[in-house]
């Protein structure tokens, strides 16, 4: 297998049980470098669970997740983050009581080299690094138009801005694969147009993106490839146009007249 054909991320019949509930079942998914992939499906379909499996928050009951061909399932979240697989959360998880800048500094954790001892002793090299970190954080904030609020408390900002701060924090960690969990939730129209541009801009920098999203404007405009899941199983996959016209997808969203079909799907 040469490098071009090895997918960046591959889920190989991945499944997970919660007690008796099969939340994700036999899921196969292959993501190419540079793509923007949409993961859609009705509420409770298991989309966020898939993200939790990829990022190591949950360990799959069966199946394997591979990153550049190497199995990563079962690794703790921080080891997966070290492979530059980074995520945002459906319910924004910013650090409260800390400024926007301090939140983005968290994203630079892996870019920071100072030892704990040099920090405690405040050695000159450590102080220089702290300065440099702040500078590069400010650059990221400027890119996302957040520089003016760098010193405000992150969790007291409006919802849409908090989403952007979380995105900035994740970008500061230099992702190769960026996982966005409902990035448009709670955004107004102009903010979501802005989001489309941001996502495409991120892709243009060579970052691969997977996103879960209900806002079809976002999904249809930014994704190259869409995977639809329902009841933890993949029911369709293809380009935005194919998915738009796929009867099974329409049925999953709108519900069928016959309940038995739902079980079958």
């Amino acid at each position, binding site marked *: 297998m040469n490098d071009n054909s090895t997918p960046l991320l591959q889920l190989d019949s991945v499944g997970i049980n*919660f007690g008796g509930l099969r939340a994700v079942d036999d899921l196969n998914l292959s993501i190419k470098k540079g793509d923007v992939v949409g993961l859609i499906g009705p509420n409770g379909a298991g989309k*966020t669970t898939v993200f*939790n499996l990829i990022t190591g*928050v949950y360990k799959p009951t069966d199946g394997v997740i591979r990153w550049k061909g190497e199995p990563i399932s079962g690794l703790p979240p921080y080891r997966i983050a070290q492979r530059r697989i980074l995520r945002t*959360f459906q319910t924004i998880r910013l650090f409260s009581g800390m400024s926007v800048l301090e939140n983005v500094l968290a994203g630079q954790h892996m870019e920071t080299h100072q030892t704990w001892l040099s920090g405690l002793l405040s050695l000159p090299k450590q102080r220089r690094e702290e300065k440099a970190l702040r500078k590069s954080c400010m650059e990221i904030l400027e890119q996302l138009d957040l520089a003016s609020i760098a010193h405000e408390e992150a969790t007291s900002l409006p919802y849409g801005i908090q989403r952007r701060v979380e995105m900035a924090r994740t970008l500061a960690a230099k992702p190769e694969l960026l996982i966005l969990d409902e990035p448009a939730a709670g955004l107004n129209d102009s903010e979501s147009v802005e989001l489309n541009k941001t996502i495409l801009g991120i892709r243009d920098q060579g970052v691969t993106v997977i996103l879960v999203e209900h806002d079809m404007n976002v999904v249809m405009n930014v994704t190259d490839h869409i995977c639809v899941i329902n009841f933890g199983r993949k029911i369709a996959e293809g380009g935005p146009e194919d998915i738009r016209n796929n009867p099974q997808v329409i049925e999953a969203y709108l519900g069928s007249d016959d309940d038995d079909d739902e079980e079958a799907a």
Partner: protein
Amino acid sequence: MEIFFQQLANGLTVGSIYALIALGYTMVYGILKLINFAHGDLAVLGAFIGLTVITSLTGAGAAPSHWVVILAFVVAVLVVAIAGVLLELTAYRPLRHAHRLSAVVSALGASMLLENGIMLIWSPQTLTFPEGILPSTNYVIGGVVLNSTQILIVAISFLLMLALYLYVNKTRFGTAIRASAIDQDAARLMGINVNRVIVSVFILGPALGAIGGLFIGIYYRQAVFDMGWIYGLNAFIAAIIGGIGNIPGAMLGGLLLGLFNSLAGGYISSTWQEAITFALLILILLVRPTGILGERVAEKV
């Protein structure tokens, strides 16, 4: 083998007392997610009040009458239940929405206050309980000495636990208690007066605790102001072993811990008995932090 059965009988007695006290910890934790550090001291308060009632109504050297003993239990239960409710209203309720640690420190403060209050009111010395509060006849069965006090303590504890179990599982108000433990907000939306439920838990728990404390005094024939700490901690460990928040778990945990302590003290080392108990606790926390009957809860992400 006789020693084994003897330790078993002793362990069962102590275990049922632990279980009585453990119920108070587990009910409060179940609803408020708060370790009520003062609970052990409430139990001790029960022992001292009971002792005071008995000694003040009984002539020196005479055995207390049945009525005096019953009165002692009733007064102890009433006073301690009132103390429990006062504790909830003054030290815990105002902190319902504060950071969890504020309530923890308030509970630790309440424990210090009660323990040292008991010392200031009664005595810093160990007080002796008179003989014959409960009938004390020895029965020898196959070399094992069973005392009627032991039998009574175990029997009454079991009856009380059964009553509580039925109350919580078979009555309407019991359902409200269980619902509040699962989800306070949802319970409130269903029209349950959660504050009333919490007050009731601060009546039931301390009431059972007072009986447990009085049993300790009667069984060991002594009480000292700071014993709430070690009995309270053992009862709390019992609650964790059974699965904190789980009422049958507290009963099971109490009995198991009583037996374990008794056997560990008898067979391994009595000087290290408490350390062994704590080692067991840490082991359980590492292997199965939710206890024997507790349910595992996945964190919602």
